[in-house]
Structure formats: structure tokens, C-alpha cells
């Protein structure tokens, strides 16, 4: 139970939004969706380390003040403006399309903004979540990761996966 002092120190909405994200991600871990899951929370932010779809752990950072959830360096080794970089941007943007079935679509209500950032050949995804439901927003982030690894990267990226995600060559 947090003390009164702690309660005063943390803005209610921020605490709630972090807790909602953590709770949602922890629920996946409890169900066994992740192989490993650790969390480090501070007053305004949380950082999660998730071992899930590949041997390379995912880093997820959530900033409560800005409601920004970042998939840190999700995809390494992509040259800016390369065909893969461009294809990824098109794919990510396309996840909002109403042509997709609802259960495969990223909700604009829950993810207000989604930006692909390529810095030093490392691609991160920044999702600005709806502050009113950051937990559901975190689920959208997981859905997006799943689509990227199971759908986008299942395309012509065998060599890329071998190089960067320990996919066995044979």
C-alpha cells in the first residue's frame, strides 16, 4: 500500500496510466505469452524488458506524462530510406486501415499517434496512447509487434532475420 506522501508525490493520472500498462503487460506474462518479463518503474515512467517472439529481448518504455509508449530499437540494422525502411513505414501506417478486420486494426481511439523513428539504423516505434485507457493502448502495441514479426517480417526478410534475430540459417 503506497504511503500518503507517495500518493501526493505522484499525479493520480500518471500513476494510473503506468499501472494500467504494467498490469496489462503483466497479464500477458502471467498467461505465458512471454517467456520472460521484467519491469522497472519510476514516478513518471516505466521500462519493460520482454522476451517474447525472438531470442532478442524487447525493450518497451512508457512515459506517463506524455503517454508515450516506445518500442525501443525494435528492429536493428535497417538503413534509413532503404526499401525495407520504406516498406516498414507503409506497413505500420497500414495497420490503421479500415480495410483490415477490426481485430487486426490499430485503433485510433487508443493509439493517437504512431511514429516510426530510424536512428543510427535502429528503428523504434513511438505510440502516443490515449491517456484514458493506456492499458488497452499497450495491448495495441503488442498487437503491432506481433503483426511486424509474424506478418511483415515473414515476407522477404529471411536474411535479415538470420542476421539480427538469430534465426537459424537452415
Amino acid at each position, binding site marked *: 500500500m503506497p504511503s500518503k506522501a507517495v500518493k501526493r508525490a505522484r499525479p493520480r493520472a500518471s500513476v494510473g496510466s503506468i499501472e494500467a500498462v504494467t498490469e496489462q503487460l503483466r497479464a500477458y506474462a502471467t498467461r505465458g505469452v512471454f517467456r520472460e518479463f521484467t519491469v522497472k518503474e519510476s514516478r513518471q515512467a516505466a521500462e519493460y524488458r520482454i522476451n517474447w517472439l525472438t531470442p532478442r529481448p524487447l525493450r518497451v518504455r512508457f512515459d506517463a506524462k506524455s503517454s508515450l509508449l516506445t518500442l525501443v530499437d525494435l528492429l536493428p540494422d535497417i538503413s534509413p530510406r532503404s526499401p525495407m525502411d520504406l516498406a516498414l513505414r507503409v506497413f505500420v501506417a497500414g495497420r490503421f486501415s479500415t480495410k483490415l478486420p477490426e481485430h487486426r486494426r490499430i485503433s485510433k481511439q487508443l493509439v493517437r499517434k504512431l511514429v516510426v523513428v530510424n536512428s543510427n539504423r535502429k528503428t523504434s516505434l513511438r505510440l502516443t496512447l490515449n491517456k484514458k485507457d493506456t492499458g488497452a493502448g499497450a495491448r495495441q502495441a*503488442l*498487437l503491432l509487434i506481433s503483426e511486424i514479426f509474424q506478418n511483415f517480417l*515473414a515476407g*522477404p526478410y529471411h536474411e535479415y532475420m538470420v542476421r539480427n534475430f538469430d534465426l537459424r540459417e537452415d
Partner: protein
Amino acid sequence: MANDTRTTKNAGTVTRRDFLGSSASVGAAAAAGLVAQAASTNANAAADAKSKPAIRPPDEMKTRDEAIKPANFPMDGAQVFAKFCKDEGLAALFCCPGNYPIINAIAAEGIPTYGGRTEGSMCSAADAFSRVTGEIAACSGTEGPGFTNMIMNIGCANAARTPLLVLASNMTISGDDTERRIQQAYQQPTTEGLKKYGKRLIDPSRIYEYSAYAFRQLKTGVPRPVHLDFPGEVTRARFKEPGELQFYYDKTRYRTESKPHPSPADIRKAVEMIGKAQRPMIVASTGVFYSKAWDALKAAAEKNDIAIVESGPSRGHFSDGHPLSASVAPDAMLSADLVVLVGQYCMPSIGEFAFGPETKYIRVDPDPTDIGRNLPIDLGIVSCEKAALEALADALPNRRRPQWVEELAKARKAFEAENEEYYQLGLKYSKDTKLLHPAVIGRELSDFLYAKDLPKEQTTIAMGGYGIARYVRRYARAFRPGQICNGAYQYGAIGPDVAYTFGTAVAVQNGVGPQKAYKGAPVIGVTGDAGFAYSGMELETFSKYKVPAVIILYNNNAWGVYTSGRSPRAMHMYLFQENLRYDKVAEGLGARGEYVTTPEEFRAALVRSYDIAAKQGVTTLLNCQAKKEFWSQGTYPPGMVRNVEPGCMSYNH
């Protein structure tokens, strides 16, 4: 092309009636055809054909059909064992000489027997035979060398959960540890980790008892290889009457046909979960095939509009042509909100099957000790697959899920569109290079087997190779049980492909199990130039037994993993001499060979070879010349395509 002396003038398509009708004339035609196979168009070869003895099967092939002579008491140990195998329905034996008393006794009992060129290949032939029939087959080899030649192949069968009976002789008990004479080896430790059960028989009077041990293991639970090794004292022992054998009684007393059935509470829970799901999917794997549960699977799926996707070492227990099939709809996998894994003996780990984070899992398996391994479950059901599917089919309410069915259709269409895109790229690359791109091979094969005059259910495929399989799997379809043998499944061995094709072809030639309706039809084999080296000599075995097949060999002058040669000094280890003529090797072994480099040549050669296989029982090797750079994503996108599992591209799990 070096085969024009052997091609038919009317290279039309072949229907089931054609090959059944032609079977009567196969004997005479084949003899002539095989003699003709020795011919070649170049002058030297023509001269050879005139002056040198022609390739032909031994006269003794005829005596293979002499009257069966089942043994009766008094019998020796080998005869007791063979009689036991006959009584248990052993469907075939594939072997090389060695373990003589056992293989001779099995042949005498009338069990179909085949002798090939290496024990390893014969082991894989038996493995494939089981994968496309669901029946138990045996392989056999001589003591040390023959037995150890089978190790890779036993490993393949073990990974595929094949009910394979591995037999080998093993010197004498009296000579144990002495290294007296030759070939002594401790066999059982060698198969540790590669079998379900194994035993070196010691006490001759227990040979019947241990035969029961073997078949109890082969016929119950999750199958895997069973390995028996026979010292000479056991096979040579004489038994005047049954009373001299321990535990000698009928099979109804040493094993049961009873299967584990699901608890009613588990079925109620499963029905409830399926009821709550919007997009349920069943992964129908190995256990569905071996429990022959395809009718129950279809009934459950159709009653509640549950999608079905296949995985495992064989395909076809749910037709790819069914509106509920997701095997050729990889994009639908991420939409499934409930997955029922049925008979998925080789379990993927998290992330290996392309399901989403919200998916819940039910697992149906006869082995409770495996449920929950690798993939956490929401419900586990201990049951025989057939019993569970029958119970589900009974308990599920009728329900239509039009949106889900529509999504499956769209996903199938999207996959076909992607395959068409790869084919068009392949045609362009083939035109540019005058070499065959793998997408072209896959698509042209598919058109020939499913889009023209052949009944689409007719042709069984032994799918092998490394890179080539990644393409051909995308285009190959299964419309009935046992139509595709997934060669490289799980163990990833690329070498046994020709042997897998032989076992598959024997199963079809004899019309065993689900192959019955297609008895005598030619089969298709797929292999690569690397894999061919391991079992290519079995082309001779095809010819000797007149087992018809068309084997597509993807020849890209390299190991499929050649891109792993990361430095100029290392690259030579990954490469072969270029443009090797495997087709001529085939000719030298009594089969046909054709060398093709363009889509047009491939198309024509495929029609011609299938026709000859159907009408004359002659196997052809199609040497398809490609280039290694087709695997380069940068130069020839999409390069080495990735697999999405489960579904038609599955081979890991």
C-alpha cells in the same frame, strides 16, 4: 537433351483410368523401356548400347511373387518374430542385406519387402511409407556398419513421431565385448534419445514377449521408432512348440485397442471456450493422421465453422480446397482468438506458430506429460485425437461464422496473389538468366497436378529439398489424407529425399491406407542437388522394382546455405561444380533423366515424365538447372522466402 529416344510421342496427361488400364501392360513395356533407358543419343553411348550389356532388372525379380510360405512350428527365432510381425500387420520392410534370418523370414511370411542401396535410405523409405499410410513399416540392416548407417534416418523418424520398427542383427551374446570377427557394436546406447523403446534381445525364449513389447509401443500413445537388435543365438534358436516361448498368447492379451477418451467436463469446457471465440482454429497435426481422425475433424469443423490448419510430417487430413481450410491462408493465423492443437506431438515454442498475443490455447494429446510443454495452455485434454474430435463434433452446437469464413477466403486469396507475384518474378528471372527459378518450378508443378486433367487428389508428393521446398510447399496442395509427405519435418535432414520418395511411391503402388484409391499412380519427389547425394543411388531401387515417380532435382550448384560462406576463403566449402548432370547419373542407374533449364522445357518434361511413369512404371529424374544467386534477396527478391507456420509451409513443427 539426351532422352529423345525414350520420350513418348503422345505426351498427354494421365488419368487414374490411364494408369490402372496400363498396369496390365506394364511388365512388357517396362522391360523394353528399361532396356531403352540404357541408350543415349550421343554416338559413344549408342555404340555402348550395342556392344555392352544393357541395364536390366535381375531375373530373380520374378521369383519375388512365388507362393508365400508362412512358417509353422517347429520354427526358429527369426520365424517366430516374422510371424508375429505378419499378425500385427507390419505393412512393409525396407532393408539392405544383413540381419539375414529376420529379413528372409519376413519375406517368407509375405510381408512386402524391398532391398535398396543403403540402410539409411531404406530406413527413410520406411519412414515415408508410414507418413503417407499411417501404417507401421520396418527397416533393417546388418550389425555395426549397416545399423549405424541408419542413425540420421532414425533421427528423422523420431522427430517426425513415426511408428518405425528398426531391426538389426548384432553378432552373438557369447561374443559380447570380445570384438571377435567384425562389426560388433553396442546398438541400444546409439539410439538413445532417438527412439521410444529399444531392446537387445538376450533370452531366445522371450523373443515373442519382446515382440509384444515392441508392438505395444508402436501401436499406442505417441508413436516413435522402436529398435530391436538380434544376437545370433536368438534368431537361430529352435522352438518345437509354442510352450517353449514365454508369454505366447494372442494380441488381444498382450495389448489393448482401447484409447484414452476425453472427460465430459473437459469437452464441456472446450465447447464453452469455442462458443466464446469469434475465430476458432484447429491445428490438425500428426496425431490426427495416425488416429485416422479426418472424418471427425471435418465433422467438428463444419458443425461450428472452425478453421482448420495443418502441421506435421504429412498433409491432407483436411483438404486445402475446403472453405474452412487455413493451411494456405497464412495471414489468417494472427486472427485466430482460440487455437485447438490436436495431435501436435512436436510442440512449437512461443513465437514459432504465427498466432497473436490474445490467442488462447486448448491442447488435445494422448500424453499428459507433454501437455503444457513449450506453449502454455488454457485447457489441456488428455485423449486420443479421434475420440476428442468425435466428442467435440457431438457436443458442439451448429453455428455459422460468416465473417470468419470470409476472412479465411480473403487470406487464401492474398496468399495466392503473393505466390502469383513470386511466379511472375520467377518467370522474369528465368527469362533473364535462361535458368529455372524455384517459383516457376513450384507453380508449373501445381498447374500440372491440380489445374489440368489429373484428378487433383491423385498425386502424392514427397516434399524435400531445402530452398526449393520453401517455394514448392507454397504451391503444393493436399486434398486427401497422406497426399504430402513433409520430408525435412523437424529434423531438417535434406538428404533422405529420394528415399522418402521411394517409400511414398511403394505405398501408392501397393495402395496402402489412404493411398488405396490411387494405387499405381506415379508420385512426385522434390529434392535439391545437396540432398541428392545422400540417397540418389536409390534411383536404382526405383528401377529395380519398377516403382513410378518423377523426381524434381533443383540444381543450383551449391548447398542451400551457401550464403553462410562469409569470406572468399570459406566460400568453396559451400559450392559444387557447376551444371552437374544428375540426369546422366539417373540414366546410369536404369532410370530416365532429363536436363531442363527453361520453364518451357520443364513444363514439357514434366508431362512427358509423368506419362512414362504412369504407362511404363519408369522413374525420371528432372535435373532443373538454376543458380545459387536465386537465394539472394538483394539480387533476386524475394530470395530465400521465410516459412509461416502452421500451414502448408510448415516444416519445423
